[in-house]
């Protein structure tokens, strides 16, 4: 594994230093690509484990102890790792999309506010003419709810 991938992986596990976090934020595209590879690799691993677990359990169905307990534990860990990798992917996508700083401790309110802002940016940048519903939605950023 290369150094960059190790940093990305440690960051997913929330074990990276402040310097590493800053380093990742200054290499957003590479960070995003590494995360995409990780999510894809882990998803494939989970699929493989699903198949292996099914095969083991059906082959040794008479076992008193679960013959696939070790693999099942691996799958749980892989699912958990993917969950956090996807959160990081969402974080870097927000950073790239909005071009502003976000942090992992951002609250749901900031997340929803960013989503509405990103919606507005996307509609305007792609040359779509905003509908009434879009404009009313964007007004919610100023605390108005007139839909």
């Amino acid at each position, binding site marked *: 594994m290369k150094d960059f991938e190790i940093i990305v992986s440690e960051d997913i596990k929330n074990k990276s230093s402040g310097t590493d976090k800053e380093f990742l934020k200054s290499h957003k595209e590479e960070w995003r690509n590494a995360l995409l590879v990780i999510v894809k690799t882990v998803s494939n691993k989970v699929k493989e484990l699903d198949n292996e677990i099914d095969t083991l359990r059906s082959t040794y169905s008479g076992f008193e102890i679960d013959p696939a307990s070790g693999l099942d534990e691996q799958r749980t860990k892989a699912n958990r790792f993917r969950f956090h990798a996807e959160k990081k992917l969402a974080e870097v996508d*927000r950073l790239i999309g909005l071009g502003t700083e976000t942090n992992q401790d951002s609250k749901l309110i900031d997340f929803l506010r960013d989503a509405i802002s990103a919606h507005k940016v996307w509609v305007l940048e792609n040359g779509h003419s905003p509908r009434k*519903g879009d404009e009313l939605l964007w007004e919610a950023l100023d605390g108005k*709810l007139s839909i």
Partner: protein
Amino acid sequence: MISEDQFALMVSEDIKNKADQTTKDILRSKDNRDRWRQALIKIISNVEKRVDYLSKEAMSLRHNYPNFEDDPAGSIAKTIEKSERFKFHAEKKLAEVDRLIFLKEENPDAKLSGFLKDAILMHKQLKQSYKRPADHADVALWNAIDGKWTF
């Protein structure tokens, strides 16, 4: 709607205090409290069953191999200890959600989140009622309600 597996994972990571703030806020939002509570009850029950099963396993191993210098059920004992600790924290979360449900508590941030969530839901309803096709930004916006960023 957050899938069952995804929701269970969110609850589990929150128990271990490894969930990010957005996930924590989603679980604690009024709409998800009952679902969060049910998930916790299920987790606690599963852990209890697992501890029970592992305790019997450990007893049987110790009974069958009494002359071992090291505890033959050492690794099982460690797993039991971890499970007990996990259950302890799950019960703390259950107490928290029970309190939130009972007191109908909501902090100012949660009220504002609820307001933005309502605005997004109304945008979705409006779009669908006019039978307008949803574009990429609309779908990504609606996904944000479940804490997913897909822009």
